[in-house]
């Protein structure tokens, strides 16, 4: 068993892991940059260690500096959180080679599932449906045009090494494909140092549904799905569990497929399998696997009652899964709203600043994961996510109402946030009906403001 856990991350997830470590009786040590000396995670941790200057490349992504700090503070395990080095096979390997436990799967599984083309191949081997497309990376236009015969248009051209929505182009027809393919290859080479691209069918109105799994290297179980279709620039904004789009039969099929894939690779730790779901045909297609804890893991914790971060620490220490599939039940509905320091009225421009006043919502069914506190000055160097407001209630309709109530109680002075966007979203008739797809939010934001304006605003304009 481990005793001293080094947390190599920042913000709300560093604090989340500090809390899990403390509950597990571990000494929590937060590795932080010079810009993050005064974060709540650092204050709440048992110990803290500075790993370098503000820029992530010199601190949170600096493997030698992190290993040195780990040695200096006698850490025996490392939790990478999400983002930064959480899906770096090199980092996982380096941690293990230094004699510590990496809280995540083995480096070779991270490498295998992190490469989109290899992950896709692995899914096919495990019998999991994938989006129709090229079986391997395509080398040239002639090969691409051959793939089209079986797949049809429109197509996506995706960089094998891409991620987070980067490195993707759409081709509507053969002419577009002929033009776009070399550009996509050059772009992938420039952006990721890897020019391989592959093709897949573009599903016009797809939902993003993902399945949470835990594995102990032999056996895997699922914790049902999350729906994350509300996205802006391919970044998730609002997530919920379960998905309003699945019936029981489809839910079982998609979740069972996730377990099959996790067991096929001997997965260890917490992982998420992302799918595109076409609700006109009820088809689901595996797109990628994230081999780490995810931002939106709390909604799964709320509807299953399982602490995923606690479990991933246990699993990394070699303990077997504590639960069988039939022990995991879905109860109620949970919603997560990402509160970003961005101004929805100024095209989501970043709005860093200091927290002048802060009141969190409270009461039944409310969970806040955030590193904010009054007086905290947000550094401009990192991601704009500053809080996750999570609500649970017995069903979706009640959860949306509770979300609105929670947002009304939430009060922050000092900078603009996306809370106002969520307040409007939870009242939207289409959101209420669950009639959403991955392009919904961008269409909704592009609508003339008058369509969504409050009565008062309309009167002011007249």
């Amino acid at each position, binding site marked *: 068993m481990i005793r001293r856990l080094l947390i190599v991350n920042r913000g709300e997830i560093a604090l989340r892991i500090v809390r899990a470590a403390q509950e597990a009786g571990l000494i929590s040590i937060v590795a932080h940059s010079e810009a993050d000396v005064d974060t709540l995670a650092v204050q709440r941790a048992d110990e803290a260690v500075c790993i370098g200057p*503000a*820029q992530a490349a010199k601190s949170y992504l600096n493997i030698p500096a992190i290993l040195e700090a780990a040695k200096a503070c006698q850490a025996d395990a490392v939790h990478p959180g999400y983002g930064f080095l959480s899906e770096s096979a090199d980092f996982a390997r380096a941690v293990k080679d230094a004699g510590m436990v990496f809280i995540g799967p083995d480096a070779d599984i991270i490498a295998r599932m992190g490469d989109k083309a290899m992950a896709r191949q692995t899914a096919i081997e495990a019998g999991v449906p994938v989006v129709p497309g090229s079986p391997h990376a395509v080398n040239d236009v002639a090969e691409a045009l051959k793939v089209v015969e079986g797949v049809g248009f429109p197509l996506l051209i995706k960089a094998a090494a891409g991620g987070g929505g980067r490195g993707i182009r759409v081709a509507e027809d053969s002419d577009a494909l002929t033009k776009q393919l070399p550009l996509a290859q050059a772009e992938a080479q420039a952006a990721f140092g890897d020019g391989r691209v592959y093709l897949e069918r573009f599903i016009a109105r797809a939902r993003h549904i993902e399945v949470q799994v835990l594995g102990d290297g032999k056996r895997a179980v699922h914790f049902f799905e999350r729906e994350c279709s509300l996205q802006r620039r391919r970044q998730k904004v609002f997530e919920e569990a379960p998905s309003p789009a699945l019936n029981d039969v489809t839910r079982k099929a998609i979740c069972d497929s996730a377990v099959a894939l996790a067991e096929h690779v001997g997965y260890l730790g917490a992982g998420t399998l992302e799918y595109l779901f076409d609700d006109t045909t009820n088809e689901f297609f595996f797109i990628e696997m994230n081999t780490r804890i995810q931002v939106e893991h709390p909604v799964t914790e709320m509807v299953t009652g399982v602490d995923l971060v606690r479990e991933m620490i246990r699993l990394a220490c070699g303990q077997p899964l504590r639960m069988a599939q039939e022990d995991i039940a879905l109860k109620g509905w949970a919603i997560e709203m990402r509160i970003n*320091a*961005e101004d929805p009225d100024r095209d989501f*421009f*970043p709005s*860093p600043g200091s927290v002048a006043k802060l009141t969190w919502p409270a009461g039944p069914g409310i969970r806040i994961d955030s590193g904010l506190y009054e007086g905290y000055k947000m550094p*401009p*160097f*990192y*991601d*704009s996510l500053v809080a996750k407001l999570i609500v649970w209630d017995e069903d979706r309709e009640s959860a949306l109402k509770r979300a609105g109530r929670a947002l009304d109680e939430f009060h922050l002075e000092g900078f603009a946030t996306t809370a106002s966007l969520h307040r409007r979203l939870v009242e939207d008739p289409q959101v209420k009906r669950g009639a959403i797809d991955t392009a919904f939010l961008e269409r909704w934001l592009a609508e003339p403001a008058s369509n969504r304006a409050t009565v008062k605003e309309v009167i002011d304009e007249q």
Partner: protein
Amino acid sequence: MAKQTIQAPFPGVFYRKPSPDAPDYFEEGQVVQVGDVIGLIEVMKQFVELKAEVSGTLLHFSADNEAVLEAGDVIASVEVNE
């Protein structure tokens, strides 16, 4: 001839060049026109172009490449063309 300063409109990291291997957008002493990009400011993982709002001679950069700026910090001074 009036001297005018270019200030950081928001906090962030200032870059004098579009990418680490590229040359600087402008050297001191060069002439800039309204709308010319003279640097980038990175704030919360977004890069925003900093544009000259006046035409004239770029006299001096007060902010180094990769300098961490607060809103209002002076980045450069320009001698404005009358």
